[in-house]
């Protein structure tokens, strides 16, 4: 098959549409998450790539979904993580857990297993020692309701 100019243009525009739709969706998810965090904490968070929330994108059961969370932080007295909170906005009860760390003594990373009622964007919010809130989200698709 020879590639015509038309094929290339069509492929390009489809690809571009796909990418922009995807980024639009994740941008909307971030906006919703930011609003929710503001409601819950009364403060504005910023989306940060220092924060890593690692979960499977697809998981067969909502009862025990693995979750790993870590933050790039030196954990010194001057620059450390005070606490990390996790929310599942589409669960009947949205709070999942809060983790507390101590500078020089614990690393800001933790793994656990959580329940998810339905596919959703899981939110992690980190409070730094200067009071800044950092946020990230990740989309997890579960096949069964882990909260029933």
């Amino acid at each position, binding site marked *: 098959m020879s590639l015509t100019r038309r094929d290339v243009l069509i492929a390009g525009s489809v690809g571009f549409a796909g990418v922009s739709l995807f980024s639009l969706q994740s941008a909307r998810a971030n906006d919703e998450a930011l609003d929710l965090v503001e409601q819950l904490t009364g403060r504005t968070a910023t989306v940060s790539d220092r924060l890593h929330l690692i979960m499977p994108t697809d998981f067969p059961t909502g009862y025990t979904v693995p979750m790993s969370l870590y933050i790039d932080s030196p954990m010194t007295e001057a620059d450390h993580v005070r606490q990390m909170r996790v929310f599942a906005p589409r669960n009947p*009860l949205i709070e999942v857990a809060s983790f*507390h760390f101590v500078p020089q*003594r614990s690393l800001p990373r933790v793994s656990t297993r959580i329940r998810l009622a339905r596919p959703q964007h899981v939110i992690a919010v980190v409070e730094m020692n200067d009071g800044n809130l950092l946020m990230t989200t990740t989309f997890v698709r579960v096949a069964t309701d882990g909260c029933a």
Partner: protein
Amino acid sequence: MTTPTPRVIVPSAAAKGEIFQVKTIISHEMETGLRHDDQGNVIPRKIINKFVCRYNETVVFSVDLHEAISANPFFEFSLRATESGRLDFVWEEDGGAVFALSHQLTVD
């Protein structure tokens, strides 16, 4: 319901300043309070709501657990070896019951 049994995996020795991993688990149903029994009555909430790790009496890591933590709550976290001593792990259940384990760590 069976009695919750805590377990930990922690090294018994570490070099000073070294980061070591701690794995903890407790067998527990984590009843959310959202479920109903056969008669349609709500099964009351009973979860582990707090986990604390102390290193020679100093809190070094803690978790507030909510309903969305899976049954048999499991945590894996990392601590810095500062001195020899005792690590205490405490799980608090709704209603005030407490489950605990301790572990001796040698640091050189």
